[in-house]
């Protein structure tokens, strides 16, 4: 196998790594936990060979969602089983990077996004930062494209209300 083909996954990780991490953080607030989820999902996705499928982007985000939900299930079992379990993940680290002059907007946007319902957050991230179309979002989240579009409209409307024109 030539090196270029063997390292093909690196190009994928360069392009989608930050987007996957942001998506994973919609399920778990800790950056470290989100990275663990992305690792697991990406390795599984790559080993499955789904990157050769007709719609690999949707499949990749679908893997991250599956890994995140699995992580949450395991976490709940762990916390139930052991009263001495470590405390649930706390919010750490910013979701976004950027220029310092936009720091206020960044912090406000993160806060507003966290307040959104989970199903709207998923669609918002996939649409705005993931670059997925509604049919692709529908495939990744196992919902219809219309539902995805509807959730996106609600999310944007709520964000605008929360942020207000002055914070842009």
């Amino acid at each position, binding site marked *: 196998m030539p090196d270029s083909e063997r390292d093909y*996954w690196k190009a994928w990780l360069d392009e989608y790594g*930050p987007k996957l991490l942001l998506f994973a953080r919609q399920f778990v607030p800790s950056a470290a936990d989100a990275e663990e989820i992305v690792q697991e999902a990406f*390795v599984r996705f790559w080993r499955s060979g789904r990157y050769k499928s007709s719609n690999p982007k949707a499949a990749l985000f679908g893997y991250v969602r599956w890994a995140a939900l699995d992580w949450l299930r395991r976490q709940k079992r762990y916390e139930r089983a052991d009263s001495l379990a470590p405390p649930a993940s706390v919010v750490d680290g*910013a979701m976004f990077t950027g220029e310092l002059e936009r720091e206020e907007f960044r912090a406000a946007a993160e806060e507003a996004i966290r307040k959104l319902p989970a199903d709207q957050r998923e669609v918002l991230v996939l649409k705005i930062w993931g670059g997925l179309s509604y049919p692709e979002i529908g495939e990744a989240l196992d919902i219809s494209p219309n539902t995805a579009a509807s959730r996106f409209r609600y999310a944007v409307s709520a964000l605008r209300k929360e942020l207000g024109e002055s914070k842009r």
Partner: protein
Amino acid sequence: MSDDLEQFEDALRSLVPRPLSEPARDAIQKRLGRASWWRTIRRMAVIAAAACLLAVIGATLWSKYGAPPKEEPDKTPGTVSSTRDRPAPQSVPTKYRETVYEQVWDEGTVFLDPTMPCRKVRRSSLERVSWRDPERGVNMEVVVPREEIVLIGMETY
């Protein structure tokens, strides 16, 4: 979609998601690197197993259908089949050795060195060796002339 909404979405897009940390990338590289190595070994094992299976099937089919049929010896009187088609003889030819002629001459005393006298004897013979294969009725005969000189050491007083 209104311009305001597009502007708002563009403002959101301007926020850049945080990249994966280096340890996370290294962990992925480690796992996928090991996976590709393991996949290569597994692929080679599958190819080897397939080759073995094909060899076994091929050998089985060859022994069953592919081997040339054994020819029956031609029983027609007056015809001679070539020896190439014949099976190798199972019997061992009989060997017979016969000395036809032998003579010995005493050629007197010779000295290998001044203190070592020897008697020189010349022995000449003709030997005939023959083989016979009674199964195929084949005879082979070889006549071998031999001559040898024997030096016999002598006691000195």
